[in-house]
């Protein structure tokens, strides 16, 4: 991959990361504030606490795995080995 292509790939990955952030925010709101009025308790703990903290965390891990395995491409970071970027 040429340098310019690698830079474009990095742009795409950055955009995907921003989308992932927006999704995480939505999940955080839904599992926290969204469940705050539900009145459900698990282990003497209101459900929104588990959803908003552990739930968001688990979602972020899923996001990180997805970005890492599906979105971010392995490239040679040094520009020397793959010819001139002309």
């Amino acid at each position, binding site marked *: 991959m040429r*340098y*310019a292509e*690698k*830079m474009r*790939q*990095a*742009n795409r*990955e*950055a955009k*995907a*990361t*921003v989308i*992932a*952030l927006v999704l*995480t*925010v939505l999940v*955080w709101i839904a599992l*926290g*504030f969204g469940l*705050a009025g539900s009145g459900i308790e698990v*282990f*003497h*703990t*209101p459900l*929104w*606490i588990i959803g*908003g*903290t*552990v739930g*968001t*965390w688990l979602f*972020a*891990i899923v*996001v*990180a*795995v997805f*970005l*890492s*395995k599906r*979105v*971010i*491409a*392995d*490239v040679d*970071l*040094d*520009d020397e080995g793959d010819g*001139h*970027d002309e």
Partner: protein
Amino acid sequence: MTSDITGLAGLVPVIVFLVVALGIAVYSRQRAAKASQGGFVGEYFLGNRSLGAFVLAMTTIATYGSVSSFVGGPGQAWQTGFGWVYMAGVQVTTLFLLYGIMGKKMALVSRKLGAVTVVDVIRARYQSNALANAAAIIIVVFFATTMIAQFVGGAKLFAAVTGYSYVVGLALFGLAVVAFTTLGGFRGVAITDALCGIAMLVGIVVLAGGVLSAGGGYENIMDTIAANHPEMLEPLDAGGMPVGLYFTQWLLVGVFTFCLPQSVVRTMGFKDTKAMRNAMVLGTVIIGFMMIGVTALGTLSAGVLTDDLATYGGSVDNIIPLVIVKTLPPWLAGIAIVGPIAASISTVSSLLIAASSAIIKDIWLNYRARKAHVQESVPSDGVCGQADKVRDDRLVRRVSQAMTLFIGLAVFALSITPPDLIWKINMFAFGGLETAFCWVLVCGLFWKRATKAGALLSMIGGTAAYCIAMAVGFKLFGLHQITIGIPSRLLPNRLAKRNLSWLIWRDTRSITTRARLSSRRSCSGGRSAWRIPRRNRSRMPTISPIMR
């Protein structure tokens, strides 16, 4: 505070930890120095871009996770309840944002430029010495205040838990961190950060055991909280935790942390994209456990420390030390305090090496290269002999280590008579750095038309707006001043593009010429930021070469 653990129990675990950290830092540095091919500067300030996934993830987390994550934040959570834990959950995004947005681009760009610091990249991108100097000064000032806050927080905790004096604690770990950073450089810092990260996790687990057993089990603690403070189980804490606070905390400790220069420099230091990808997953798992875990422990402490704040000295910063003393036997308490102290020293070490690099690499070496260029006529290739180069490398090495030592000792001295409210000082610096660097970095890397004048205006103007707003306590809609700093930086970027383009054109031309000339010099003390890859020289940029 009345009860503390005295004697060796409070001291031995910390000392053992510090000795191991010092040993590892020095050993790794020596081994790397022997194997090193490149110049001293790249090795000392960036570890020759060799970080693997585990060390990368841990050094990012340990740099980010500070003593206020362990003391101020959980203390606040003791008072506010689970809303604070919910808010702290935003920090799970920090690692994937940093690597996902900045990671690959910074890795590509910094390799292409031979950049060692974040300021190197900013200088090359915007072709501006003024901007680079402003950035370096902002880094030194805000890093210094943060380091003091970290030292103060760590030493106060140490004093409160062990009963030894504040100065003893400060001298013990303060001098240790200055020593291992001076000797170990970036590589030593990264590896000790990994060790610190492990110590932080151990500290959390030990403290969790103490809190849960002292409170009579998890469910019992939850029942106590529900009986004493039912509002602590509401996200808004009956008005104590308004939505506006959630919003600004999201920005301050979540979304914009990927712009912090001490984090961004780590994306220049990993060895390949595989390391970055794995660090993203590993780091998200660990930072979630750490930040949610330690903050939740603060809230759960409300099942152990059930009186009001005045009983505990009137400051939420006292809560965690008291919980450690109250719930753990002396030897375990000694182990538990290694966690927050590790959080403190891992942040200090990273900021110290970065502050030193700002002065040495971004200001001194750059100034020297320019001055040398002015004094001499245009040099030809290979004018400097091998002996000159070796001598020069030795000089740079000595001055770099002396500067690291000097900043460290200066910060240490300032911490002896400490300012109050560590949490707010730290937040001030956090917001100031985010304000200063966010758009400059993001626009610089992702927006081809971002201009030098825009960046300069927005870095200085935004930081000034933020600091003035913080100083006079001005808030928009009751939100934290970060909401003033961040947008105020975007405005001039757009205005300046239209109105000041002549200025940019003129200055870019002169810098381009100098860059071309000094890139031929071969003895400027390591790879200079001015160095532009050979094949690009023929068509030097009207916009920066790294943006193509």
